[in-house]
């Protein structure tokens, strides 16, 4: 989970931790998330905001998909135009803000339960 807004980041981490009953990692910038993924550490699904310092969501998406094409990458944004950009950049899913708890459960259903 990558977002520089601690309110949204902590809420999503709580909800996902509860859903999957496993550790969910969080990062406050694209660069810190990339440093972790670059080392080859486990991250099956990445949920990432767009506007962040150091490295934005689209830059992280490009790096992750180039190095690990099989990883699921979900772009999250409250800017409508970013949906088309996410699709063009190869994101697996788009999470439009504002979203609900049910949307997070649906993501777990789709990418963890159904695989």
């Amino acid at each position, binding site marked *: 989970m990558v977002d520089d807004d601690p309110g949204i980041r902590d809420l999503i981490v709580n909800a996902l*931790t509860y859903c999957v*009953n496993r550790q969910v990692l969080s990062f406050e910038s694209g660069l810190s998330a990339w440093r972790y993924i670059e080392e080859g550490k486990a991250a099956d699904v990445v949920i990432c905001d767009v506007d962040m310092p150091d490295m934005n969501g689209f830059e992280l998406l490009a790096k992750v998909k180039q190095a690990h094409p099989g990883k699921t990458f979900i772009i999250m944004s409250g800017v409508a135009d970013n949906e088309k950009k996410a699709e063009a950049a190869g994101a697996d899913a788009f999470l439009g803000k504002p979203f609900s708890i049910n949307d997070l459960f*649906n993501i777990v259903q789709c990418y963890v339960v159904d695989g």
Partner: protein
Amino acid sequence: MGRFFQAHGFSGSLFSRMQMKRFGSTHADAKKMDETQLFLMKLHLLIVMVKAKLKGYPTGDFRKEAVLENTASLFKTLPHLNIGILGPNISSHLFKERVKLLSVMAIAIISKDYPLGIHRREAVLDNMENIIKSVFPRQKISLFHEVLMAA
């Protein structure tokens, strides 16, 4: 892009695998999330956590920790919250006290494994239903069976 795939004879299943999935608000409703929305999501999550416990879904260590984190976050937000969404007949003070009570109940029965007898179960249900009526009167609080069973 869909027309391209159809025009070139790709199957529907192949196309659907490649198409980006979509969750959350629609294109027209896109905007930043405010404090009230975040509060309501935390409250919704707390209600799901309590309902799932009452239904007997498993609670592992990470789930217990998530309950503690979520309730701590609700407690932090609650005093400063201007709950404009409440109807005119609902006291903001009483509503906040009910949320605090539900948080304590959740910590006790989920994170700390205190026993849940008939009367305690009724008290939890009654308090939870009151909160749901106040802020989610038309919203169905769903439990995702497969997600809750998977862990």
